[in-house]
């Protein structure tokens, strides 16, 4: 989570790798659950189970972030990560608001809401890089 791989600590590198894995898992799980819902016409209990499975990558990445924040010795970097996560939430909510509006008032269907977690990860990552640039 530092500005380049050379300056990353082992806990930062591990956390970033896990977050990257969670991003891939999110895409796989959301795509899989969407395909199942569209083609399989699952019953209500199966639909709920699939929806719960979609939660797993999000829970996983929150756990990764929590573990990272608990392990990070540098309080300043910890503060930057928390601020970056707030920006990540902001980007996700803004994306949802736009998608919600477009879906409600136009025939266009955007599946972006299914990739909320990825939007959050990407928003957090970009925000962290930008925040870090201010303290070079």
């Amino acid at each position, binding site marked *: 989570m530092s500005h380049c791989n050379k300056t990353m600590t082992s806990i930062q590198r591990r956390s970033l790798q896990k977050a990257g894995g969670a991003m891939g898992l999110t895409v796989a799980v959301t795509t899989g659950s969407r395909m199942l819902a569209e083609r399989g016409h699952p019953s209500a209990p199966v639909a709920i189970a699939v929806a719960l499975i979609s939660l797993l990558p999000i829970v996983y990445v929150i756990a990764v972030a929590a573990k990272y924040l608990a392990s990070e010795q540098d*309080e*300043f970097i910890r503060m930057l990560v928390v601020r970056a996560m707030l920006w990540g939430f902001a980007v996700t909510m803004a994306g949802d608001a736009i998608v919600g509006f477009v879906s409600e008032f136009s025939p266009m269907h955007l599946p972006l809401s299914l990739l909320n977690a990825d939007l959050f990860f990407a928003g957090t990552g970009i925000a962290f890089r930008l925040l870090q640039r201010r303290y070079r």
Partner: protein
Amino acid sequence: MKNRLRVLRAERNWSQAELATRLGVSRQSVNAIETGRFDPGLPLAFKLIRLFDMPLEQIFFDEQ
């Protein structure tokens, strides 16, 4: 809160990176403290006290 970190570091001919290594933090942390954009918590403040071997009031001072 203002501080004399940059002066104290310069007196010892340490770079920001060197001071960061001695404190066990990132170089960005040192930069943020020096420029007054981040006030360290007690654990880091105590590290600074030990490293420079001087009381806190001689490193940090209130703007008032």
